[in-house]
């Protein structure tokens, strides 16, 4: 297998993760957001597996498996169950229109490429590309968290952000396994906490719009 193919495939998978990050931004229904998220996690698992193969690092297979099981299967299923269970609105309320969000997203990708490429001058081309992609995914996740009102979409934004982190971790050689595992578990714990949180909000306010929480804060004078 030639070096070009190695590079191209890694690039393709990384780009898929990024594409899914964009796709998350223009979804109008909660169910499709969850589905896209599952696809992103799947792409991430593929990226991890491919990195495991080319870096000849068996522990990355474990990372790939964790990503596949937890992020691509369990988390989306749990979220869909939550959405059904809560009987919430299926449409997404945006704080910023979809067009402008996408424009900002493109700007963020440009920013991370401009930033990462000069910084990592000495590193291998593959690591540089992957880092730029990972950082774009991370920023897109953050962008999703602030432009969507619904609590479920905020959680998915957070998970997407975490996917970006993991993508960076697998492409950097020598990242210890324990870091990846702990990140994965942290996400799971966060997911459970968010789930409980949803139920509580929902019980009180009949809505998952986080803005409804604001009048109840205790620290307002």
């Amino acid at each position, binding site marked *: 297998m030639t070096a070009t193919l190695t590079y191209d495939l890694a690039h393709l998978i990384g780009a898929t993760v990024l594409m899914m990050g964009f796709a998350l931004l223009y979804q109008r229904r909660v169910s499709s957001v969850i589905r896209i998220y599952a696809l992103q996690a799947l792409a991430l698992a593929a990226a991890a597996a491919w990195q495991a193969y080319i870096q000849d690092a068996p522990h990355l297979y474990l990372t790939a498996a964790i990503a596949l099981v937890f992020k691509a299967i369990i988390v989306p299923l749990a979220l869909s169950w939550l959405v059904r269970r809560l009987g919430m609105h299926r449409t997404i309320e945006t704080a910023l229109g979809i067009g402008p969000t996408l424009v900002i997203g493109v700007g963020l990708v440009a920013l991370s490429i*401009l*930033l990462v490429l000069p910084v990592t001058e000495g590193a291998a081309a593959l690591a540089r590309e992957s880092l730029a992609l990972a950082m774009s995914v991370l920023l897109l996740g*953050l962008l999703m*968290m602030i432009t969507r009102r619904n609590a479920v979409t905020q959680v998915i934004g957070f998970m997407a952000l975490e996917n970006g982190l993991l993508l960076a971790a697998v492409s950097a050689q020598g990242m210890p396994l324990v870091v990846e595992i702990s990140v994965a578990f942290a996400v799971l714990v966060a997911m459970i906490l968010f789930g409980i949180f949803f139920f509580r909000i929902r019980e009180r306010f009949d809505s998952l719009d986080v803005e409804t*929480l604001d009048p109840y804060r205790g620290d307002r004078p």
Partner: protein
Amino acid sequence: MTAGAALLLLLVASLVPLGAGHLARAHQAAYGLCLGSALVLALVALVHLAAGDAARLAVLPFGLPWMAAHFRLDQLSAFFLLVINLPAAMAALYGIGYGLHAPEYRRVTPFFPLFLLGMNVVVLADDAFVFLVGWEFMSLASWLLVLSNHRDQETRRAAHLYLIMASFGGFCLLPAFGLMAGEGGDFRFEAMRAGEFGPVAGFLVVLLALLGAGSKAGLVPLHAWLPQAHPAAPSHVSALMSGVMTKVALYGLVRILFDLHGAVDWRWGAALMLIGAASAVIGVLYALMQTDLKRLLAYSTVENIGVIAISLGLALAFKDQGRQALAALALVAAFYHMLNHAAFKTLLFLGAGAVQAATHERELNRLGGLIKRMPVTAPAFLLGAMAISALPPLNGFVSEWLIFQSLFRGPELPHWTMKFGVPVVGALLALAAALAAACFVRAFGIAFLGRARSAAAAQAAEVVAPMRAALVLLAVLCVVLGVIPVTVTGALATIAEPLAGAALEPAVGLGWPWLSPADGERGSYAATVLVLAGLVLAGLLLWATRRLSPLPVRVAPSWDCGQPDPSPATQYTADSFAQPLRRVFGTRIFGARETVEMPPPGDPRPARFSLRMRDPIWQGLYLPLAAGVDWLAERINRMQFLSIRRYLMLMFLTLVVLLVVVGVRQ
């Protein structure tokens, strides 16, 4: 070595009273330990100065993990060690007697040695870390001392203001040292001395040093805390804060501007002179308007710090213009005045403390006639007042005379601004000196002369022996420093030499005992001759009057004028004595308004006189500043009540902005 042991002794002294409770002996023992260690430190300094030794270094293994603590005793530190510890020893001696009279004395004794320790560490420090630790130690210990009488609302306010200003000063000095340390981050003074600063860094260092040390020293307009905090402390602490702590601040200024920075632009000298002139005139005008004895003394400190700042500024200007010999003259004058002010301001504050201990009064309008009730305190206070009013043959005269001698040489500077500016500053200094004399005539006259204005003043009794001893010793110090000016100037010249870059010859042309720093014809002053001649003449006169007068000495009541008046209210009051000067200067500067309410004829109500003044700097600078801070806080406060999404947005924007900054800088 000896100095280190003395410093440790101070630490021990602060621990002694902790478990003692009300046990008077323990508190007195703590003051005794302070007295001992201050004397040892003063002796170390004297020996170092007298031997003219080279700087002694000590590196101790504590402080920051990657850096040991550096100490250094050079001529400048030794001089300031002396300036600190002579008054400190006297204050400790005074404290043995006074300490138990002070309200809440148990809150004073543990911090008094720490305060001394902080000041000593500042002048011995040889790296920025030790310097700042000592500086903050000094600030915080004195803050706690100010706060000792914390049940008084006024005291708490003063302490709060002091804490704010002290933090401000510390915040200014920290980046000043950071800038001097440069990118290498070498905080040893040695490295700073060797380092070169760019124009921007050099400018900022001087500005920050002026703000940091100036706020501690009490230069206008950063003086606002001083007249509130100094009087609020117990008197022996006020004496040290006013007489000594301000000198430590000036030490910081001298160390940075003359030693570490070393190449300060002459314009800074001009600026310092202007600030000093403003401090001198405004300080003494404020002092003239006060009726609280200790507050009056505190404002007089602002004046004297201004006088010293004028001289330091002049030295900077001379030095930058290549007139090293004149810079040495101005610097020596400044040092002389620092030493003098430390002596007589400590004396005056301790005297005010004695008055307070005897009468429980600080208000001038309720004192009076104390010269008969307090036969030791009154002459000592009088000597201090004469010294601070710059009357020959006392020490205040010598240093102000030297400052004038250096000001007269100001027109030799090449710049026209200075040629014209220096005489203006000289005129302002002359005005301040005259007003200071008026101020202390008023202070002494109202407090000690005339008849008692209150029952407490009428029943005052002389204070205990240790307090009297401290007062007498300080008064003797004032006289001694005044009558041997050539010796003192010569000693100070060796200290100023490395800082100014040239030596000062104290007696050019005429030789001892004539002090003639320029040459014999431009001006000379022989205090020793003056004193001897004065003593002989006074003795002759006294003998002649006693001998030749046909009548015996009669003792008559004061302010009697042949028509006994039962009410002491017919005497001058502090306010009425200041009235002419208040009308001349106060109407414009303080907005002083006098109103007299006369009841119509036939109405038996008494007429009322009321006086209103405002503080222009407090109302024009501090209150708007406080309002501005409040306004800003109100705006920023809104950030506390955003929604989760907005917080995320803020974080996101910050991240993106930082990333863009990084991207652009590449």
